[in-house]
Structure formats: C-alpha cells, structure tokens
C-alpha cells in the first residue's frame, strides 16, 4: 500500500520535517526554500521564515525565483533593510536555524559556492558566498539540503566559502559566539549528521529503497554509517499533495510572466 513519489520529493519532505513550530529559519533560495514552505504549509504553520532580502515572517503563495521576489515582501509581516537583516536579526542572535543549499560539501560539512578548481584559474566559476558565510556561523544551527552525487560530496571542498567544521573538523572549537553549525544534511538518498566527536558526516538514516552501496557510490569519500541506521519515514499523501500543488502554482506563475 505504498504511495508513488520521486527521490526529490522524498528529499524535500524529509528536509521540511526538520523544521518545527517555534523555529525562526533563515531560508536559502532553491531547495531550502521549497522545504521550508512545505513545512509551513503542513506540520509547522507557525515556523517563522526569513529571507536575506529583509522579509521577516513571510508566507509566500508561490516559491520565489529570486531571494527578493515581490511575493516575499507582500506576504511578510514586515520588510527591513538588508543591513538590519544581517546585523540585528542574524548577527543579533534571533535566528535559530539557517537552511542552506550548496554546490559542493565535504566530509566536515564545509560548503563551497565560490568555484571549482583553483581560485585564480577556475574550471567553473560559481556565484559566491551571498549570505551563507554568516548564516552558517551566526544561526543557532544549520540544516543543509542538496542532491547526492560524487561531484557534490567531495572529501575536501576546492574552496571553503562557508564554514562547516573546518578542514580538520575543529573549525568551531574555542570560537566565541558561534552557532552549533551543521546539525543535519538531507539528500535524496539519506540523512547525515556530524559525528559528535570528530564532526565527520555520518549517515544516520537511509531513505526507503536506498542501499548503503547507493550512498557510497554517490559520495566522494569513505562515508561512515551510524551503528543504528534508521529508515527515513516515507512522505504522506498529504505532504505530497501540498508539495505538488505548491510546485504547480509556482511553475504556472513563473511561466506566465
């Protein structure tokens, strides 16, 4: 009696379930935004969503294409200037969760959105840091969501745009006024958490139908698995319905303009 769903839907629903009522979430564009709004439209109607464009407590009908779409301001409780956003609300310690995507992530959950290759002779130039470097250190904790692949999950990122736990896993040790950092990474195959001691990412839950080999094949280092490996609960019919409606509304609006 199972429901049909894609691995992307599995990822979004699992990422959405990480958010709860009572959290204030600084939302990155793309997959995090999709997950955060699904959470708001299902089990966490009171989760507070904040985007770096200055929109506080926003409730968009459709997913924004850019971080500053009009929809975000129109459905927000209030909209503040960008310096206020970063200084008072983020740096001031009012954000419990930063929800980020990334191009590359390594075993210590460092994020690279700057470039592939050498800085002065890049193979691929990526957009850069944006809000992420300070979201990752000033938010209480960080959730990360992205698709699992060997290109994305590398042993060492080419460039640390945004701190996970540093190149040796000790990047947050002894730093005052810093958040816990990444506490979970949600992909289309599994959920990972940093090892409490070494901070190396460890698989704690496999999505239904995914094997250990699938995860190993899509990861660029010898990934560890928790002793007690859980099975991620499947999406419910309700979650899938809300997610599909949200994506349809979004596509219709973005195609129409």
């Amino acid at each position, binding site marked *: 009696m199972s429901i049909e769903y894609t691995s992307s839907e599995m990822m979004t629903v699992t990422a959405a379930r990480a958010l709860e009522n009572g959290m204030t979430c600084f939302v990155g564009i793309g997959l995090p935004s999709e997950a955060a709004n699904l959470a708001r439209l299902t089990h966490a109607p009171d989760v507070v969503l904040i985007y770096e464009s200055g929109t506080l407590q926003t409730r968009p009908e459709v997913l924004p294409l850019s971080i500053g779409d009009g929809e975000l*301001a129109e459905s927000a409780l209030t909209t503040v200037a960008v310096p206020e956003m970063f200084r008072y609300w983020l740096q001031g310690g009012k954000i419990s969760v930063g929800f980020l995507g990334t191009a590359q992530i390594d075993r210590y959950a460092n994020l690279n959105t700057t470039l592939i290759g050498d800085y002065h002779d890049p193979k691929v130039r990526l*957009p850069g840091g944006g809000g992420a470097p300070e979201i990752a250190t000033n938010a209480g904790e960080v959730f990360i969501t992205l698709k699992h692949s060997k290109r994305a999950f590398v042993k060492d990122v080419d460039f*640390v745009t945004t701190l996970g736990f540093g190149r040796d896993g000790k990047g947050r040790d002894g730093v005052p006024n*810093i958040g816990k950092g990444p506490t979970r990474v949600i992909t289309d195959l599994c959920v990972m958490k940093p090892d409490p001691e070494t901070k190396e990412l460890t698989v704690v839950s496999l999505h239904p139908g995914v094997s250990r080999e699938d995860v190993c094949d899509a990861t660029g280092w010898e990934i560890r698995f928790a002793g007690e490996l859980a099975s991620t609960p499947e999406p419910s019919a309700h979650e899938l319905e809300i997610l599909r409606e949200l994506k349809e509304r979004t596509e219709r609006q973005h195609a129409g303009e």
Partner: protein
Amino acid sequence: MAEFLSLHDAVARYVEDGATVAMEGFTHLIPFAAGHEVIRQKKRDLTLIRMTPDLIYDQLIGAGCAKKVIFSWGGNPGVGSLHRLRDAVEKGWPRQIEILEHSHAAMACAFEAGAAGLPLAVLRGYVGSELPNVNDQIKFIECPFTGERLAAVPAVRPDVSIVHAQKADRKGNVLVEGIVGVQKEAVLAAAKSIVTVEEIVEDLIAEPDYHPNACIIPGWAIDAIAVAEKGALPSYAHGYYPRNNRFYKEWDAIARDRDAFTRWLDENVFHQDDKPAGGEA
C-alpha cells in the same frame, strides 16, 4: 539639493570614466534604465560595486564598461550563471576584469559604514571562510573591550551611487517601498547620487498612502533625479509592475553567446533611447 535632469544628462554629468559606481537594488528596483544609459555613453574603466551583480552588471561587463567588480553573490537568481561576468573573469572578454568578493553581511555592513561616514565596518563574520585568503580587503581586528576577534572591511564610498525608486515629489524627496535593500545606504555613502523614479508627484507627504515611517530619502541628500518609467525592468517595482521572470530565464541563452549578446545590446540598448529593455511588464 536634487536637480531634475534627463537620464542622459544625469549620467553624462556624474558618471566619469574610471569612477567607482554603485548601482543598488536588492533584486528589486534595479536601475536598469540608468545602467543602459551608462552603456550607451560608453563609460569605461568603472569599478562597479553591487551586492548581487545581477543582469545589470552582466550587461555592463559585457559592454566593456567595467575594470573591476566588487560583489557578494554573482549569479542569475534561480537560473544559473552570469555568463558575461564569467566570460570576463575566465577568458578576459571583452576585457580582463578584476573581482573582489565579499559575503552579503560584510557588504551590507560596508554600505552602512559608508553612509555613517566611518572608514570601516566591523562584523562577526568570515569565521572559517577562505574568502579572506583571496580578498585583501578583509581583515580581522580585536575588540578593545572584550578581545573578541572580529572581521573588518573598508566602508563603501562610491564616487556615485545610482538607485531606482517608486516616486519623487517636486522638492526631490524620494519614496522607496517594498524590499529596500541597501538603497538608502548607497545614496548616503556616495559623493554624488542619481535616483531614477517611476513618476513625479506633487508632494509625498500629501499622498494618500504616506506614512511617517516610510522610507524617504530627502531631496537635499540627493544630487540628481531623472524620470525613468519602467526603469527597473526586467526587475520589478513594488506597486508598479512585477519581475519579468521569463526574461531572467531568456537572458541565460542570450548571455551565453558573445554574438547573441552583442546583437541584443545593439537592438535593445544602443538603438533604444531611454526605452525599457527587458520585455514588457
């Protein structure tokens, strides 16, 4: 005191070759019409500052106006790369440009410090990031009171800032509504400022939707105001027209190819005095 000029005259008077220019608007109210006027007047060797270069700087870079770009997120939002920016950085076309990249928090603080007349901005930033290794404008200082290590970046002090806003009144007071980004900071941080607006009204304070906490930049803090109807397209103007998301997607194919880009520039910028380029709202 703000002077009412044509967009042509405002750009001709205040944007000089070699100037440091900030054209702000955080995905909203991006001053495209003014950017196109800068391209038409063939300004050269500009240092362009903007948190999110967006299509506007992709166009200025592709047109050969820039020698240096200072930014914190250089993509086409929700679509992908800025191909003209990448072509200039990776292949030096149409000329080699220098880039200096920050995080959003640092740039927002740097604009604010510029507006506040300070030489630097201090923030709890760049912890563990490798950006300080490639940007010599990021330093660390010790708090004299607590000893905490904090990041410091120089204030943004442009020669000229250009922003777009909804409306100005006869005295040159400007109203900015919706996502206000760092527009006010950009204007106050700059030696000279140009504000383009959708329309001119008699008196902002007499407008039916006036509010005492509205974001208003007084006319005496602005140098030039120029009317540029639909001047933010293909970005949007809250209360006037929506973002042309379709154009943002189409831009990917145009900007990917040097010839397609050059054709687009010829047809939509060089031969379109003051008309909005970027589709209809």
